[in-house]
């Protein structure tokens, strides 16, 4: 009976605070995961880890890595053992909702701007209500991060010429 409160204490003292602090600091939006793909462990749980760089044919064939692809492969960012988490360079496991920590490892100046709200986008209430921060991956596909060009909305209508003038 004594072990339960002890366990609770341990979780509250060590597990939760780290987690909660990170989450409350930046109220981020949902990562744009393809529908039905998460949790990754659904498929990957019993699978052997294959760290070899190769062409993906059966699954994830839509992913064309175009993000320093010569130096990088899936498991540099995706955690090989606990598949539902991402991985920092120092080995720390992070949630998909904390991916800004991962991007910030290399893009430090952009990350600094993102934290103060200069890079990226925030919507909702800046005062007296809920505010949402867009994650890096809400605008940049992490596998091909360059912002894609868009079709512009129509230009304004030119003023009519009247009486042939």
């Amino acid at each position, binding site marked *: 009976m004594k072990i339960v409160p002890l366990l609770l204490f341990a979780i509250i003292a060590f597990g939760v605070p780290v987690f909660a602090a990170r989450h409350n600091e930046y109220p981020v939006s949902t990562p744009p995961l393809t529908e039905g793909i998460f949790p990754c462990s659904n498929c990957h749980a019993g699978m052997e880890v294959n760290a070899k760089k190769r062409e993906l044919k059966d699954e994830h064939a839509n992913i064309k890595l175009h993000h320093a692809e010569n130096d990088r492969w899936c498991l540099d960012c995706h955690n090989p053992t606990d598949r539902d988490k991402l991985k920092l360079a120092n080995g720390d496991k992070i949630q998909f909702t904390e991916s800004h920590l991962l991007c910030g490892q290399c893009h430090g100046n952009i990350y600094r*701007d993102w934290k*103060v*709200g*200069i*890079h*990226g*986008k*925030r*919507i*909702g*209430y*800046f*005062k*007296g*209500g809920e505010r949402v921060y*867009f994650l890096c991956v809400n*605008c940049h596909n992490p596998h091909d991060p360059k*912002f894609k*060009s*868009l*079709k*512009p*909305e*129509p*230009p*304004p*209508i*030119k003023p009519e010429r009247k009486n042939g003038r």
Partner: protein
Amino acid sequence: MEDRSQTRRDFMKMMSMGAMAALSLGSLSCTQARVEAFLQKHFREMTEAEKKEAIRRLEETYFRKYGKKFHISTQPADAAVLWGYGLDLSRCIGCRRCVYACVKENNQSRINPQLQWIRVVRLKDGSLINLENTEHYYNPEKVPEPGFQYMPVQCQHCENPPCVRVCPVHATWKEPDGIVVVDYNWCIGCRYCIAACPYKGRVFNWGEPNIPPEELNTEVHYLGNRPRMKNVVEKCTFCIQRVRNGRYPACVEACPTGARKFGNLLDPDSEIRYIIENKRVFRLKEDLNTEPKFYYFFSA
């Protein structure tokens, strides 16, 4: 002693109301509303009770006209606030999403006349200063185009606004939180302000505004996005109906690249203050001493 001007006003009110009522007994309530609108005081001189009455009358008029229940706010400025806007020119791709979000949020006339408060101009690379060579009818398949920069221009909410100074009837003024507003009920449509504005920040209702009823935004502010009438001037109000409630303006939320920033210039922790203190910033036509509160900046 009774106030003389008050007596004269009351007398005129009575006389004209009597005359109008006698002229058209058939549509009495409608006529009365028009008379009351005609005799409405300047917005800044109204008491709270008078404001309430004017709002009630306007809401009724809108209901008759559009068949929709409007909520018209008169929320005043917060004393500790001076709004400022930031626009990141290194991120803007000229997609015009902001223009159409603004049109929708602020009940602009869609066509005949087509009114837009934001004008996105395209500049050739390397001639950012040369506004003579801009183009705002560009329409490529995809933006951004190589070799071009884009710069959205809207009301710059000058600290020293020339448009306000030229208005002969004080129908436009600067609010304590820095927003330059127009009272459409007081505007006589002389368009002096349009001529005075160096940023083309104002547009005119040459005809009766056209808005599809199902697209009307019914959450409005008296000095902002309430439906306008023919012959009045209108302009960007930083989405007064949203920002005074703590929400970002519609253009900020619509921008797909996050180039648009907004905040309180008096708050040292705000995003806009960070931009001014840490980024390369410029204001449009600064040499005119209009002191815009719209800061263009480069983050990259």
